Every structure is written in C-alpha cells, then in structure tokens.
C-alpha cells in the first residue's frame, strides 16, 4: 500500500492525540478500589435504580423509598425473625393477648433521634394515621382493628373487632413514627421526610446525592454502646449485574442479590472474606394450575403433572443448586417446626419424579395418547398446555423450560410461554392460563400460605380478577381449620390445626410446589464482622427483608 507523507502524518497525529487523551483521563481518574472510609458500611439498596430520590417516608410502600427508612431508621414494636421462628421484642419489651385485645409494654429507655422520649402516644398516633390515610394502610390492619389507645405512657392497648391472632404480625411490625414531628405533616402520603427523626440505629443523613447517600448513626440509640459501625453508605446500582460487579470489587460489604454460580463468580475472588448464606426461607415457588377449568379441576391431573416434573433438574438448571425439591406440604424451611411427617409421607407419592406413574394416572382419567404420541382430551382434540412465566426472570424461565420438557416426555403437548412481566401478571390474576410459575407470600406461620392456597374466602369467581389464590381453589374444610387458627393462642392447638391443613394440601394438591425460594445474602468480612451466617444463624443475612436488617445492624463491628 502506498502511504503518502500526508497520510502518515495525519494517522500518526490522530492516534497520538487519542492515546494522549486516554492516558491523561485514565491516570487521573483511576478508581479507588475502596471508596468508603473506615467505619462506613457499604450496603446494597433494595431498590435497583440509577438515581436516588430523597425519600425517607417509612409508611409508604409505593414508589421509591430509601432502604434506610424501614431498615435502619424507623423501628417496629416487634420484629419477626424467620430463622428462629420467634418475635424479637424491639420497641416493645413484651406483648400479651387479653381476649381480643393485644397489650404492648413499651421500652422506657427509647429516645427519638432528636432527643425526645418515645412514648405510647407515638404508637397510637401512627395507627391513627393509617386509619385516616388508608393509602398508607398497605397491610389493611384497620380491616380487623377496632381501636388503638394508650393506657399509660408505656402501655398500648390494641383492640380487635374479632379474634384474629395472625394480625400480630402486621401490628407488631408496623414502623412507628414520632407524633411530635408527623402531627404537622399535612399529607403523609406524599411526604418525603427528607430529614428523618426516628428511633433506629442509623438516622442522620450525612449527605445525599442522586448516585449515593450516607446515613450516620443515631447518637441517642436505645441499645447502649451500639451500633459499632459509624455510617451506612449506599450506591445506586441499576441491576443485578452491576451489584455483582460492585461485590466482587469490594464495594459492597453487605448485599442480598441473586448471583449465578456464586462459588466461582464471587467467593473465589477472595475465599477468606467473601461469604454467602442462602437459607431456604423465602416464598415457595409454585406451579399453579387453573383449577377452575377442566381438566385441572381434577386433582389426579394436577398430581400427574407434578409427577412429570423432575424437581432435581429444575433446582439444578433454574437455581444453580441453591434450593432443593419441595415436599408435598408446600412449606419452606422457615416452617420446619410445623412440618407434619404424615403430610410429607402423604405428598411423597406425587412430588416424586415418576413418568410411568404420571402416564398411568393420565390414562386413567381419560387423557389418553393419540397416534401422534400427544395426549387427547375426551373430545378428541390435542390437550394443549401452556406453561406461563414472566420473560426476563431467567431462573423461572429455565424452571418453566424444564417443566415443559418433562410434561412433553409424559405425552403432554406442553409449550413454554414467556410473557412480558405485566402481561404475565395480568393473565395470572384473570385466570387466563393453564399452568404458570408463581410465588407464595412468606409469613410468620403457615396460616397465610394456606389461606391463600385453599380458602374459599380468597377464591374469586371465574372472570373476576384476583390478586391472590390465582389457581382459584377453595376448600370448605380448609375454611373451618383457618377460622379456628385465627382464634387459637394455644401452641399445641395451632400445631394440630396446621398439621391438618398440611394433610389437606398433601391430599388434594391444590397447587404444585416446586422448590423453596432462597433468601439471598452476601457479606464481605474484610472490614466488618458480626454478620449472621449458617454457623451463627441469629437472623437472616438478606438486607432486603425489612424490618429484619434491624436485627443485624446493631451486631456489626469494624474489624
């Protein structure tokens, strides 16, 4: 090739300039690997976003409320610890039931971060706020409450309209706001509470920028000598990939995100300090069948579908082996003390992978194979089964793929349908599906789980959208058991009723349990210690389940 002097000159000048620019920018902007100073704990925000809005309103579920509001600033009276299965007394020292009344005895030593004392009137005020602004009552507590009053400065009496023991979870865990500040707030729904006054371990907003913010510790915290950590810092991360990058780079001391192949991707980068703990206490992942439509209204069909699912494979391909196959009770590992051996035995037959048994069962209900190998409905047409899942939820999509393949092996003409998330959810709620992967709501006891899975109260008629009980299954037997469970305070009675519900579930298979969801949690022990893990399981490790991080924050110490 002929190169003229001009060409050479031009090319060399351009490349020299580019190289120079690169070198200057690169040398002056090399990132500091550990951006945070000593004593500053870097925590992953639950909300994945690129820019933060300054909003510390703990009563809001909607929109964009900063992590610190519900996890380090505002505290509830009780915190349910799902690892131990107990309520940890927090702003309340103790609680007791008196008939349909719930009495909380509050701690005397608690101060708000502005130095004002915390009193029973603050609790009453908070619940009155939920009553007045029902947009804040996300848990719907006023559906079963009659009134909340302060007996004296340190005693709160919550009266129920009827006996409803499961209400304790929502009452106890309600974040409490200070009356002396919030009484002047005209509209607490759109209040962004930029300078919070709260009782928690970290309340002082040191600085706030759209990409990052820092909260310093509360000088008046009621746990004397705690927290040992100076401040919490949060950086805006728009997605899981960016979180993983930050974790590997030592920019997150405490996180709770799904990481694929975590031993290789994360732990291997610093095996001595990078740790994770994924206890199986998040909601059970289910395969819901549309029980309002034939043939799914027949429990034998549901069981046959369940038998055609290789759960070992599903857990391996969809969850990287982080979970394990479910049993026939649908209970995750947070409910271990409730698990009935009889119900497990009853369900064992239909949660075991057994294509032969599945085929035999389908043959007996009349869904026989045609000449082309696909099963036919009684009217002779091919039985088409769509397995729905939200597109982009890669773990669920892979699970649904494995399920569809298993069903095909049993001669069922199954097709995977990954829909845009909003479309998927719309279909789920309107009962417009054959099979769909879906979640269940984790709670303090199996009551909520089984109410959602089996009560006629949550079952909406066909054609009406439903936010719960998507598979539209109702059992009058379950109703009776659930109603009694709402009233009993006797642990033995509670256990007996729960056992019966489990038996009912294992007998009729209203939904098909796949695997219990892991609660993601990672920590980096380079700079801090005291995190919970499987050797020291005092609380869940995940920072994303408010208010549980409040159990962890006071226990952390700089190394």
């Amino acid at each position: 090739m002929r190169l003229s002097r001009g060409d050479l000159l031009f090319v060399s000048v351009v490349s020299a300039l580019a190289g120079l620019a690169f070198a200057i920018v690169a040398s002056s902007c090399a990132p500091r690997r550990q951006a945070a100073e000593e004593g500053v704990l870097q925590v992953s925000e639950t909300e994945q976003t690129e820019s933060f809005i300054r909003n510390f309103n703990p009563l809001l579920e909607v929109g964009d409320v900063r992590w610190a509001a519900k996890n380090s600033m505002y505290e509830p009276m009780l915190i349910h610890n799902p690892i131990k299965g107990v309520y940890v007394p927090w702003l309340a020292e103790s609680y007791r039931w008196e008939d349909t009344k719930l009495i909380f005895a509050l701690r005397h030593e608690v101060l708000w971060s502005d130095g004002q004392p915390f009193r029973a009137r603050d609790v009453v005020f908070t619940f009155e706020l939920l009553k007045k602004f029902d947009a804040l009552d996300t848990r719907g507590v006023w559906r079963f409450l009659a009134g909340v009053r302060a007996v004296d400065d340190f005693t709160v009496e919550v009266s129920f309209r009827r006996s409803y023991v499961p209400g304790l979870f929502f009452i106890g865990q309600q974040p409490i706001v200070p009356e002396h500040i919030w009484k002047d707030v005209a509209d607490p729904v759109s209040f962004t509470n930029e300078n919070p006054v709260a009782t928690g371990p970290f309340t002082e907003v040191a600085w706030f920028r759209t990409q990052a913010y820092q909260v310093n510790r509360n000088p008046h915290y009621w746990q004397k000598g705690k927290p040992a950590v100076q401040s919490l810092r949060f950086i805006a991360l728009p997605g899981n990939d960016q979180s993983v990058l930050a974790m590997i780079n030592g920019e997150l001391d405490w996180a709770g995100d799904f990481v694929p192949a975590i031993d290789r991707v994360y732990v291997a980068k610093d095996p001595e300090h990078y740790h994770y703990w994924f206890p199986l206490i998040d909601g059970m992942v289910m395969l819901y069948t549309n029980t309002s439509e034939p043939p799914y209204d027949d429990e034998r069909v549901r069981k046959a579908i369940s038998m055609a699912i290789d759960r070992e494979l599903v857990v391996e391909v969809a969850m990287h082996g982080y979970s394990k196959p479910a049993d026939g009770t649908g209970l995750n590992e947070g409910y271990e003390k409730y698990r009935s051996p009889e119900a497990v035995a009853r369900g064992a037959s239909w949660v075991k992978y057994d294509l032969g048994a599945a085929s035999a069962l389908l043959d007996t209900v009349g869904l026989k194979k045609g000449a082309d190998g696909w099963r036919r409905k009684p009217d002779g047409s091919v039985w088409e089964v769509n397995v729905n899942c939200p597109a982009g939820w890669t773990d669920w999509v892979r699970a649904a793929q494995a399920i569809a393949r298993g069903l095909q092996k049993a001669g069922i003409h199954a097709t995977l349908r990954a829909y845009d998330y909003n479309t998927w959810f719309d279909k789920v709620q309107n009962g417009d599906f054959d099979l769909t992967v879906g979640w269940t709501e984790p709670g303090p006891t199996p009551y909520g789980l089984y109410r959602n899975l089996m009560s006629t109260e949550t079952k909406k008629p066909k054609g009406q959208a439903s936010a719960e009980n998507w598979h539209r299954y109702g059992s009058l037997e379950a109703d009776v058991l659930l109603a009694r469970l709402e009233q009993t305070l006797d642990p033995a009675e509670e256990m007996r009723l729960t056992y019966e519900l489990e038996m009912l579930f294992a007998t009729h298979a209203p939904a098909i349990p796949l695997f219990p969801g892991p609660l993601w949690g990672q920590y980096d022990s380079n700079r801090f210690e005291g995190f919970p893990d499987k050797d020291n399981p005092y609380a869940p490790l995940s920072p994303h389940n408010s208010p549980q991080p409040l159990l962890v924050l006071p226990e952390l110490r700089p190394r």
Partner: protein
Amino acid sequence: MKFLLRRVGFYLVAAWASLTLAFFVPRLMPGDPAHALYARFHGKLGPEAIESLSKALGLSHDPLWKQYFGYLGHVLRGDLGVSVSYFPAPVIDVIGVALGWTVLLTGFAVILSFIVGTLLGVYASWKRNGALDRIAPPLLTFLSAFPYFWLAMVALFVGGLTLHLFPLRHAYADYIAPSFSGEFLWSVAGHAFLPAATVVIATLGGWMLGMRSTMVAVMGEDYITLAHAKGLTPNRVMFRYAARNALLPNVTSFGMALGFVLSGSLLTEIIFSYPGQGYLLFQAVRSLDYPLLQGLFLTITFAVLGANFLVDVVYVWLDPRAR
C-alpha cells in the same frame, strides 16, 4: 422564510399528535401501575395492598377521554404530574436530573462522532485509495458491526474491572460533591470517557461511509474540476465546494441522531450505571409509570422535532435552493 413558516405549522401538528400518542400508547399495555408495583414486591405484600397502592398513587377511574383532556390541560401549564415509580417525586424533577447527564454523555458522543466521522469521510474520499481510505472504512465497519452494548461490556470489563483504569459506574465519583471545581469536572470526564467512547466507536463508521460515498459522487461533478482549474487551494475546493454539497444527507441523519439523543443509549447507560434518560425509560415501561412515560415521550419527541427544525434551518443555509 415561507419554507420555514410552513415547517413550523407542520411541527405544531406533529407535537399535538405525539402528545396524544404519549397519552394513549402506555395505556394500551396490560395492567395498571398499582398492579405492576404490587407484582414488583414478588409476594412480599398482601393482596389488600393493591387497593391502598391505587389510592396512594391517585389512579383515576374517570373515562379515558376525560383523563385525556385533563392531561392536555396540565401539559399546557407545564405540569407533567407525579411519577409512579419515583412516587411522590414530580415527573419534572425526575426527568430533570436524568436529562442533563444524557445530554452531556450521548449528546457529546453523537456530536463528536459526527464531526470526526464526517471529517474522516472527507479526507478519505479526497485521497482516494490513500492509506486512510484503505484502512478506516473496513476497520470502522468492523467495529460498528458489534452491538454497542457489547462494546460497552467489553470496555467495562477490560478498562474498569481488569485494568482498573476507569470507574465502573456513575457519572462522577461518589465521594465528590457536585460543584464547578476542577476535581469534579475531571471526575465527570473520566466517568464519561468509556461510555462515550463506545458510542463513538460504534457509530463512527456510519458517518464516515455516508460522507465518503456522497463526496465521491460530488467530486465527479464539473464544477469541482472548474474549481481546480481556477487554481483554488485544494483545501478550499475540498471544504467549500465538495464537502458543503456532500454534507446534506449527513446533516439529515445528524438531525435524526441528535433528536434521539434524549432517549439515551439505554443499554450503555445501564451497563455503566449512568444516571440518564435511557434507564428512566426502561424503569417507566417496567412499572407502567404513565406520567413518567408521558414526560419522557414528550421530551424525546420535542427533541426530535427541535433537532429536525434545526436541520431545516441548516439546510436553508447550506443549500440556497431550499430558500
């Protein structure tokens, strides 16, 4: 002048049409913001939450036409409403933060790419079969064949994670408070370098090839030969005679590209956690944030229209026949 006035009329109609589309298109998607929000909690909220969420968000149950006229009225008064995904922040504030960074990053990258690419095209065609003409087109075509987000990921991995030359995320270092200090501006430049470079590299080829091919055609024209014959300097012929005429198609594409700057380079912004408009758009669609979607469509369409108007003006200046 008449040409420009006619264009203004056209733009007014286009603006109304886009306002209307921005209102109706998001509402064609299934579901509503409260349900989208509820689904985002992945089962951590009870079903009773949906009702309280709709109340908090102030979702209207008025007939659509009533909502539409209400919306038009509000927009005329400059009120874009309150964002759902960033509740209770007003849409104006949410977009305001992102807009600046997007204009800075993508705007700078697009302009740089246009200028450098066009100049490369001019020089390459001026010295047909010269070194530049042989090396640059295949190389740049090769580079622009990569998806820009893939380039971004490689750049982040190599420049950020492996070599630690560049920051991994954000528009400036977290430990610096925004100000007009040298330190802050350096930090902004350093953070913008990789994302801007990936956009430039991926788009340079298009500008260069476009310019080169029109230049080659123009240079066959008689008036170029005449200009040479008159004894004008090569530079003058190259820029005032050839490039000026060959620039028209590139200017049109530039107008388009400039208009789309505001939609951001979605994936680039996500990969570098850059706080721009692209990610907002993604977030707004995901959470069915109607007000934010409307606001974003509005800024994007107005930017496209504005850029096109600029192009029209430039055309009048470049090409006397359009006057």
